[in-house]
């Protein structure tokens, strides 16, 4: 089933002797929350890197809204409406929470070095709007009071939310969340759950990579399961939980990695 929104066709990535992804067909329908799960090393983050242009596929193509993504630079892909968070939070140091989110508006603004340096009128209006929009996103994520604080001074849970706020500021059509619940306590995870649902309400499609099965099963519309770089199952959460192949794949893992 190929979607017009996001579609990965025959996607393959090898690093030297290691094949991280092999012949993957995956698509995402607009407006849904899709989760990608699988044991560690299954190729999930590689998948994100391939979609966002950090890595080039060894084989296969990535299509987004009718355009071919593979081969484009990351910043160009961001300009097409795809944004993301990172597994290890990558906020900008020495910048406040607000400034981090304002950076997300980068492509929506126009001022170049000369307009900025000479502070031409259009730029000032732009800056004001940028600031207002950024505050809105902070408010949406519940971080409005932290705007003036140094981004890296926030606790991890809030840093992860901040990174999402920053990604939202780019006005994406598709949001990639890379293990947003990692390192969060159950209360923060519940809040995250609710936040992701609110993001979907804004009309943003979400592709989620996660290990926290409760979160995944609770909010996903569709779940894809990867193992050793291949898709072994796909469907609504209930089906995936009962799928014997999926369970077998996870039995190699310790503790609460397996779908409950």
């Amino acid at each position, binding site marked *: 089933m190929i979607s017009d929104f996001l579609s990965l066709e025959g996607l393959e990535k090898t690093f030297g002797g290691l094949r991280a992804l092999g012949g993957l067909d995956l698509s995402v329908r607009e407006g849904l929350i899709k989760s990608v799960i699988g044991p560690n090393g299954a190729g999930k983050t590689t998948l994100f890197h391939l979609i966002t242009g950090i890595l080039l596929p060894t084989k296969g193509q990535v299509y987004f809204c009718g355009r071919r993504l593979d081969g484009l*630079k990351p910043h160009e892909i961001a300009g097409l409406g795809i944004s993301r968070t990172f597994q290890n939070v990558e906020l900008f140091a020495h910048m406040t929470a607000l400034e981090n989110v304002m950076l997300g508006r980068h492509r929506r603004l126009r001022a170049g070095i000369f307009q900025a340096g000479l502070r031409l009128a259009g730029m000032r209006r732009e800056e004001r709007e940028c600031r207002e929009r950024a505050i809105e996103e902070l408010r949406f994520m519940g971080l409005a009071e932290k705007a003036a604080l140094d981004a890296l001074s926030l606790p991890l849970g809030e840093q992860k939310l901040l990174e999402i706020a920053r990604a939202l500021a780019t006005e994406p059509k598709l949001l990639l969340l890379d293990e947003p619940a990692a390192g969060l306590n159950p209360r923060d995870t519940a809040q995250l759950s609710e936040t992701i649902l609110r993001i979907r309400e804004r009309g943003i499609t979400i592709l989620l990579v996660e290990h926290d099965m409760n979160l995944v099963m609770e909010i996903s519309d569709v779940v894809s399961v990867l193992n050793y770089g291949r898709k072994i199952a796909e469907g609504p959460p209930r089906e995936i939980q009962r799928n014997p192949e999926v369970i077998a794949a996870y039995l190699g893992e310790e503790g609460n990695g397996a779908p409950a």
Partner: protein
Amino acid sequence: MKKMDRIALFFLALAIGVFPWGVGGNQYFISLLVFLGLNAIATMGLSLLMGYAGQISLGHAAFFGVGAYSSGILTTQYGLPPLLAFFVGIFLSALIALVVGKPTLRLKGHYMAVATLGIGEILYIVFNEVAPLTGGPSGLSGIPPLAVGGVAIEGTSFLYLVWGVAFLLLVFSLNVINSRVGRALRAVHGSERAANAMGVDAARYKLQVFVLSAVYASMAGSLYAHFVSFISPNAFGLMFSILLLMMVVVGGTQTIWGALLGTGILTLLPEYLRGLEDFEMMVYGAILLSVLLFMPQGVLEGIRRIGTRRKGQVA
């Protein structure tokens, strides 16, 4: 720009304004402040590159030299008006920066540092070797002072000219820092990967700020040529590149004011050491090493931390 910036600008303007009166027209002190201003123009650009964009250049003296030689050669050998020579210098510096910047800014850390070192050295060799044009090691003399309507701009009036330019560039720089571009640069410094993911064309911005910093250095070099009227390649070699870098680092890479402070310290310091000819470089190196070891964030940040500690706050 921020309020603190405005206040600082005001006091700086004030200080420069009264300075000539304060030293009773003493040409030695005025020259010193002129050199301070010239260095400051160059380090401002370097600060944008290093402090904000997080890159490094160990060869910036070369761009200073390009500006100086452009002004020097075009006004003496070709009789061009200084303003035109000034812009030719800017154009050449920008062009060189564009050409070498693209492949160099892709490099990481140490590799970038050494590449810029190499570029600086190559240009230094060119200054020495293209003797018919540059005068080679013996230098180029007879560079005319700047003049308006036949009246030469020297001494105090030149001081105001240099600092006028420095001021304009400072305001320009502060505007850039507090804008979308400044955010993009700082983002690239923080995490190039995340910046790219948010739509910032990191490579393009790095190149832009590199070219801009080269242009600043070129402007300073052109003014320098008209001030000293005699230039030779030695002024544009490795030691000066390192000096410029040190000014930014010692003062503090966090802000552009740090670079200005560092410029102040390292322009005035050698003057104090002047009496101790033989000791000069050694003391210089020792002081720099100590600052780096004990105040790696730079003097400005060091002062600020002592200030907040005194108030009883947790630093």
